[in-house]
């Protein structure tokens, strides 16, 4: 009697937790398929298109998921800089400077990066759905696009959406659309080596859409 009651209430809460994110089972399967064991490393090259700049900023380095909520973003070009996120705190290390620590809540971009990246690398759709509204487009076996919109309105005031392009079980590109119109495009894995010297939005989107 008691145990069946417990089971029943467990079912209720499970269904409640799933309720706010009616993502399709195909989307969930796609995300689960992206999972890798920690630690997972991937090269990245990022181009930032900003209103304050005439031409985009290009940086490159390595993203590493160290397990749990630990993420490292190591920049090698043009200047060495490492961001480490662990336990809600960010540590910024630059050559020749003392490490800086600040709360993750002060850097919504990093929060979004952590949430999306960790969930993707761990292949955990449940966590992803708690933080984002997810939709997907394309063929899970070939080209696909995942669209993530932050649920937290405060975060959404800075980061409007994230788009991830991939082919089969590999993510190729990650676009971070900022609310003010600025855009950051990250080329991931082998694609990172193909960042053009003078990137444009169009050339990068074309790269993301290519077959591997």
């Amino acid at each position: 009697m008691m145990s069946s009651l417990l089971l029943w209430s467990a079912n209720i809460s499970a269904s409640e937790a799933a309720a706010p994110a009616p993502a399709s089972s195909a989307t969930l399967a796609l995300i689960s398929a992206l999972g890798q064991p920690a630690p997972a490393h991937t090269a990245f090259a990022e181009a930032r298109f900003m209103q304050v700049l005439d031409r985009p900023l290009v940086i490159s380095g390595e993203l590493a998921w160290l397990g749990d909520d630990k993420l490292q973003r190591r920049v090698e070009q043009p200047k060495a800089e490492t961001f480490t996120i662990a336990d809600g705190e960010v540590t910024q290390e630059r050559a020749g400077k003392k490490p800086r620590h600040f709360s993750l809540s002060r850097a919504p971009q990093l929060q979004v990066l952590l949430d999306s990246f960790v969930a993707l690398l761990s292949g955990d759709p449940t966590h992803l759905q708690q933080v984002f509204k997810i939709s997907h487009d394309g063929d899970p076996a070939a080209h696909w696009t995942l669209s993530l919109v932050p649920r937290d309105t405060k975060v959404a005031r800075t980061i409007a959406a994230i788009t991830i392009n991939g082919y089969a079980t590999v993510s190729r590109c990650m676009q971070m659309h900022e609310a003010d119109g600025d855009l950051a495009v990250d080329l991931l894995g082998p694609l990172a080596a193909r960042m053009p010297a003078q990137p444009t939005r169009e050339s990068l989107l074309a790269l993301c859409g290519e077959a591997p």
Partner: protein
Amino acid sequence: MSLRGGGRTTLLVLWLLALAGLGWVVSQRLKISTDLRSFMPAPTTPDQRLLMEQVGEGPGSRLLLLAISGGSDEELAALSQGLVATLKNDPRYSQVINGSFDPGALDPALLPYRYLLSPTLDTQPLDEAYLADQLQQRLDELSSPAASLLKGLLPRDPTLEVLKLAQMWAPAKSPQVRDGVWFSAQDEALLLVQTVAAGFDPGAQQQAIDGIEKAFHALPGSAGAKLELSGPGYFSVVVGAQTRHQADWIGRISTVGFIALLLLAYRSIGSLLLSALPIASAALAGIVALTLAFPDVHGITLAFGFTLLGVAQEYPIRVLSHRRAGEDALHSVRALWPLLLTAIASACIAYLAFYASGVNGLKQLAVFTIVGLLAAGFSTRYLLPHLLPRRVRDVADMRWLVRARAFVDRLPRPRWLPLLVAAAIVAMLALAPGPFWQNNLAALTPLPQSMLQHDARLRQALGAPDVRYLLVLQAPTAQGVLELSQQLQPRVDALVARHAVDTLELPSRYLPAVALQRERQQKLPDQATLQHDLTEALDGLPFRADLFQPFLDDVRTARTLPPLTPERYAQTPLGQRLAAMLVPRDGHWLGLGTVSGVHDVAALQALGEGSHGSVRLLDLKAASESLVVDYRTRILQALLAAAVLLVLTISFALRSVRRAWHVLAPMTLATFLVLAVERMAGIEISLFHLVALILAGGLGLHYALFFERDTGDPAEQRRTLHATIVCVLSALLVFGMLAWATIPVLRAIGLTVSLGVAFHFCLSILMAPHASES
């Protein structure tokens, strides 16, 4: 000759109407002040005067520390933000902060002033090399994922002066920021609220605290969370409430006991009710006199005043006990009157000494008690007897009283008794442990240890200033203080660096002197130079060419701004913070540096060396103790004057030095005996003990006067004994109850009066002239 039934009713109605009239006046005019400062003596030294100001208005004493717990970080942060939003526009609070980064800390209209406020230009010209370096840094920062805040600031402020100022103004030791607000290590959201009301004005603080609690409970989601407060203002409210609660509770019990005792003694409800009329007249007349003589009446005056009016209870009791069977009440009173008048006059003269003390609160006390005693005395003499029932039982015939009187008469009255008691008093006072006087007012109203620990923890987490120390800077003008503060800053930084003190915040931190602002202003490049340098610096960088026009505009504006003065600054939140640290007084200006975490007092005091008094460390605790010492000296002087007047009055009234000796000797000995016994018990004597001793002395004077009275009539002597026993028992009942209170103030008064009443009674019996002598 007594009034007939109809006349009696008329008199009663008139008396009640008069009381109602007085009550109406009181309800219309009485304004009770709760500011403790009006009960303190006028400060004499500069430190004491500063203390009196700081006790109420200092930045430290008006600070309330708030902690919200019982929820997730996000819920608590939302409550913290909600509370700030509600309180920010409330005129009761001058500052409400919770750690959230507020870019509006510097008024937008004042933004160009950042170049005059920030120390950058002191060491660094705004030239091409500096701009190039800064812009390269901004570019590096833009490539980081934490750039969103920067993007908004960049066009107007590429050197990030606003952030430098925000960093400079942030509390030196601020708590951790989570979800945008301060959190303690115990996961409570923390806030600091500065009240407009003085810190030690419990009435005004109560309103400020009520406002905070009301705002908190009105917030959505506050039901499960807990708001805790701390700080001097909160403590004064808690202590006041605790004391009142216990005094009320004890008061109710002893009132019931008192009524029962009087019913038992006189077996007449009518007499009991009527004898309350002189006391009611005394209290109302006293308050009306106060409202006429003073703009507001202090709460403590009323509390002490009602205590001291306890003497007046004796007047109707004496009349009731001295009634003879079949005798008109008027006759009994007439026989008693000379003695009663002597007692009233002596008490009034003694209290008159308080008026001469010069302390506002004591003056009020004197007016209240003297008017009250006169009202009680004269209404007992001229009104009460007309109303008392004609038929009464003569207490003189009661069998137990006859036996008691016989027992008292048989007691030995050795002539050496006063000498023995005096010797014992001297010995006890000499041998008593610990210091004689209690100078720490706080010791009498102690706070629960848990509350103090909570306060210390919050204070440390928030880096809130100590309430005890202040670094005082003095100069002829406000600008002079700011310049002095600037000169002092490097030495203060050195002290903080070697951990003599955790933080020391000087006024120049919020506003540099006009001279320094001018200096910085002159270092700003003109428009053409800046435009040229900026263009050169931007060469090779990807920034948009026209991006920095707002920066150029601000620098141009800053070059011609009139320097920021405290007056102009005062309209902004930071200006209010400065205003609390920069105060004009007596034609010169004082800067108040707030201190927290003092580890080396001597090093702080050394800051003032060689400054000829323009820089000094003020120890508010030491100043308050010296104030208490001054206060006590005034009371003791007043008492000495009262004692001399009392000797003269009694000698004159009794027209015999020998008889005066019989009255005054037991009273004096009993008073010192109470002191000696309390000292032997390890009690340190405070102001409250002194006030209680005076009340006991007043009661003792009655006992001695009546016992000394030589009537030669055994029945009358029995009535005297009856009256005195009723008086003693009622005083013991009321004050003995207070002696059991847990709050030291109440206990001090209760214990002292109870001991006093007991000693006065015993000594005035034992030292009265023996019945057989007369």
